[in-house]
């Protein structure tokens, strides 16, 4: 049986601020679609990407309620990819930098997110076929 590829993505950008978030999540999605295992090491603002308490909001300027606005939430995208991965024969291992989490009070993440340290990033990268660092703009 062919060894499945494992890719590690290192993310830094906070949610709702940069195109980086959508681009990074698109790469993770494409990796899962191929059946690749995905490691994510999130640090700095990116630890808030899977924050459990993200909430959609209405758009009062355009007169749209919450349902009509359908505001996208990164935590939902991440949860969706984690749920989809087993169907593709893949696994998503999401590790949040613990210090970055504590600084931001962001410990309450969605299910499946782990807490780690930069040493975990080294371990993930060492065990991966390749690693991509996506720095902040």
């Amino acid at each position, binding site marked *: 049986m062919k060894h499945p590829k494992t890719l590690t993505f290192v993310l830094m950008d906070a949610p709702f601020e940069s*195109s980086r978030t959508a*681009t990074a999540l*698109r*790469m993770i999605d494409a990796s899962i679609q191929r059946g690749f295992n995905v490691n994510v090491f999130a640090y700095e603002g990116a630890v808030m990407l899977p924050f459990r308490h993200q909430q959609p909001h209405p758009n009062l300027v355009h007169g749209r309620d919450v349902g009509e606005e359908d505001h996208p939430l990164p935590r939902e995208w991440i949860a969706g990819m984690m749920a989809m991965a087993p169907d593709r024969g893949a696994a998503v291992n999401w590790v949040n930098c613990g210090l970055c989490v504590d600084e931001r009070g962001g410990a309450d993440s969605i299910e499946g997110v782990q807490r780690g340290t930069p040493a975990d990033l080294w371990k993930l990268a060492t065990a991966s076929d390749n690693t*991509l660092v996506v720095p902040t703009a």
Partner: protein
Amino acid sequence: MRELLIVETRDAADHKDPERMADLAIGTSKAGIPTTIFLAENGAFNARANGESRLGAAVSKGVRVAVDRFALTERAIDEAALMDGISVGDIDLVVDRLADGACVMWR
């Protein structure tokens, strides 16, 4: 030799670095390293035929240049407006290069 993929996300009209990345790609290609530039996010603006960039020189020197279809759509850039020699691709291109062991640089 490992392939080099440079993911350029910045508009050359706003930053000087995309020009430097194009020059880097020309240099690595000249040194025999297969080199690709993938234009994502605001880097898609650099793919326009009337845009400010050194990509034309890079293409003429053997650097492969592709632009993210998603980024073009977001910015309403018509594929017909792209510089000659630039292809349109998807984010899968980055994932496939990673899986093949390429050195991927995100800018």
